[in-house]
């Protein structure tokens, strides 16, 4: 480990309603791999976005190579030698590998572009990294893993001194991760400072020198990797008081009937052989880290995405669900994690959104009976305590929590007995969160069965009767609330080799 190349001190950043970074400290030395860890929403990505000029910090200082700096665009950061390898790839699928690497700074030859030289340079770059990729290959023909390698090569070609890897291994296979590690070790030898964001505990142990842990937008501490255990890190990540008392006991009787049974569900890479049961009146928590395949499982059950195999039973009867239409007919409702894209039609009114799934109940003759539509919408506005001036209000004008209530109303009006809540409180402020929780408890008491996908540990522990944990597309555990704790869940959610 060499000298300090980058120091971030007292970084503070707020967004409307959220204190995203609260005086965070972070440093990187030359030739070290520094892991940045924390639960979803702990502020890791925000911190890195502040560093690379995507966000502008409110206060604090960034010292890079001995000078205080502030980057305003990713381009500026790039030119200074601070580059980020994004989780989502910024690639141009129709161009070749070399063309992608040198986009915007092509070598010229006369009036044309010197593709030959670009290929040679790219080949040299790959040679240095010991990657076997043909620079003349079309980008979209490569596997995701190799595309990631190209992104890394692109980062290095900027003469980077600090490289940030934002969950680089999420889409990689075992062998590809091995290659990635080889590259990272090489870079380390070249005295490049590396920030490595990951959820995978085993990787952290293998590849990193130090670990910095963040929690809820604050800096928790930094450890030397070889001197600490997995449990140390997990404790730092979760070590927070749970204010609202968690459930200690399932409120569902042991003999409650099974309303939904999923057997060996498969859908792509992200859903592999998932089986579970959901009982009447139960809130079944789905826990796991980002990219664990929970949303994909929900979408496959709901018929939103095609599934490759697996059986679904509702009240003991086998059903075929190939589209959301089928699912809704079976009484399943799905509240998406991304309300604006998948949940509501923002330019339509509260009433119109509320009856979206059950419009046929409000058609008399040929016409929509707007009176009864408004009446029922108003009923649910009242019972869910949705804050809206009237049911004619466009949904776009409501706050996140109230939009969520409109989506809930949509499924309740459709009389769905099985509700899938995918991140029900994302982007919702604390007060409204409590209301949503109360509402979910009430629904469960009334006999609805709920699957709740959540990345917030407190939410899982507070709400669930039983918890299913997923990791990388597979179900890795299932425990009753009685035995559940943050540590046990986190252990199941992180991968062991």
């Amino acid at each position, binding site marked *: 480990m060499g000298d300090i190349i980058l120091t971030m001190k007292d970084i503070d950043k707020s967004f409307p309603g959220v204190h995203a970074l609260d005086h965070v400290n972070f440093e990187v030395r030359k030739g070290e791999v520094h892991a940045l860890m924390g639960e979803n929403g702990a502020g890791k990505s925000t911190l890195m976005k502040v560093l690379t000029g995507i966000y502008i910090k409110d206060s604090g200082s960034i010292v890079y190579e001995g000078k205080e700096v502030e980057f305003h665009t990713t381009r500026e950061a790039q030119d200074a030698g601070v580059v980020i390898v994004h989780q989502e790839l910024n690639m141009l699928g129709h161009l070749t590998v070399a063309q992608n690497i040198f986009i915007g700074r092509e070598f010229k030859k006369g009036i044309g572009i010197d593709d030959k030289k670009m290929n040679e340079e790219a080949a040299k770059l790959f040679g240095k990294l010991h990657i076997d990729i043909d620079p003349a290959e079309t980008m979209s023909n490569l596997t995701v893993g190799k595309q990631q390698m190209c992104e890394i090569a692109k980062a290095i070609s900027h003469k980077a001194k600090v490289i940030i890897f934002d969950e680089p291994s999420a889409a990689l296979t075992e062998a590809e991760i091995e290659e990635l590690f080889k590259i990272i070790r090489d870079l380390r030898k070249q005295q490049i400072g590396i920030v490595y964001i990951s959820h995978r505990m085993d990787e952290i142990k293998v590849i990193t020198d130090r670990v910095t842990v963040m929690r809820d937008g604050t800096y928790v501490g930094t450890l030397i990797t070889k001197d600490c255990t997995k449990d140390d890190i997990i404790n730092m990540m979760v070590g927070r008081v749970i204010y609202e008392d968690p459930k200690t006991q399932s409120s569902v009787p042991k003999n409650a009937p099974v309303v939904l049974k999923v057997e060996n569900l498969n859908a792509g890479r992200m859903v592999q052989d998932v089986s579970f049961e959901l009982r009447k009146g139960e809130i079944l928590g789905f826990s796991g880290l980002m990219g664990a395949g929970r949303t994909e499982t929900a979408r496959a059950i709901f018929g939103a995405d095609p599934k490759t195999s697996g059986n679904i039973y509702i009240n003991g009867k086998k059903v075929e669900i190939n589209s*959301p*239409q089928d699912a809704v007919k079976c009484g399943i409702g799905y509240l998406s994690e991304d309300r604006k894209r*998948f949940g509501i*039609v923002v330019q339509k009114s509260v009433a119109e959104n509320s009856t979206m*799934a059950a419009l046929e109940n409000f*058609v008399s003759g040929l*016409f929509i009976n707007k009176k009864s539509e408004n009446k029922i919408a108003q009923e649910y506005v009242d019972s869910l305590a949705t804050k809206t001036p009237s049911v004619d209000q466009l949904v776009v004008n409501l706050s996140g929590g109230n939009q969520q209530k409109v989506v809930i109303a949509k499924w309740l009006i*459709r009389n769905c007995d099985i509700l899938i809540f995918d991140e029900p409180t994302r982007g919702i402020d604390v007060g409204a969160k409590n209301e949503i929780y109360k509402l979910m408890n009430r629904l469960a008491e009334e006999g609805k069965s709920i699957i709740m996908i959540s990345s917030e540990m407190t939410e899982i522990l507070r709400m669930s009767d039983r918890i299913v944990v997923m990791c990388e597309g597979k179900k890795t555990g299932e425990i009753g609330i009685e035995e559940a704790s943050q540590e046990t869940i986190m252990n199941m959610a992180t991968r062991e080799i």
Partner: protein
Amino acid sequence: MEKIKQNPIVKKIGINRIVLCGVLILMYAFFCMLSDKFVGIQRIMSALNYAYFLGFLSLGVTFVIATGGIDFSIGPVMFCSALISGYCLTSYGVPLVFSLLISVLVGALFGVFNGYFVAYWTVPPFIISMASMNIAKGLASVFTKTQSVSWPQSVDANGWYRNFVKVGNFPVGLVIFIVFAVICSIILNQTKAGRYILSLGSNKEAVRLSGVNVKKWEMLAYIICGTLVGIAAIFFVAAYTTVQPGYGDTYNNEAIAGCVMGGTSMAGGLASISGTVIGVFIIALLQEGLLALGFSKDYQLIITGIIVIVAVYADVITRRRKN
């Protein structure tokens, strides 16, 4: 200005439509001032003749644009309908009633064709429009052996269909058109079909995840459009008698202009039938006015083009500001 906007009556009618009505009246006054030939019932009747068929086209395309799509095959399809049904009437002796039905049917079939490929195959609407525009032209030419078709005059035995447009000097066509506009408005705003068409134009995925068969409803919008285009064909021949194969594409833009001027958003999800109706009247009056002033049809093409650009750009800006 804000105060006017908050006025309940203004709010109900919509500031956009009030402005459009103002434009319509000003335009009429303007043409009357410039040309004394313009004053009088004849010009108005003539403008109305133009407004009828254009109005039906515009009503139709409003449904398609509401889904976020586009159809610029409507002009040629209208001609195709008029030619095929007219040829059946004049050359094969098909009774008039059936000929009229054939006209509507041809339009509807094109709607099915367009809608099927857009909704079930996700072919971009502009590609389908381009293809069916040419298929319509080709089909009409093949069917009529590249002859123009003259529908019966009002004095002929089969001439009663002309009463759809006017009886004496009474504009029956206006009544029928308004009735259809009201029906369209009801379909769009009061029925399940309209609700789903508008909603899927706004956010297709959210509607699909509500368990709605979005493909079916998207296709329906194109079928409604096609049917109205078939009706437009009847009003075209009732007013102008003769149809020639190979034409009709100039009306596409005018119909779209009427629609976007009236406040229907090219991005989908937002449509106004009453706006479309006023927009159509403006285009029809413009056409008649330019003619009265001695300008050729070509100026109309240019002006309509500019109108569409301005109207759509205005929509782009409003949406940008909202985000």
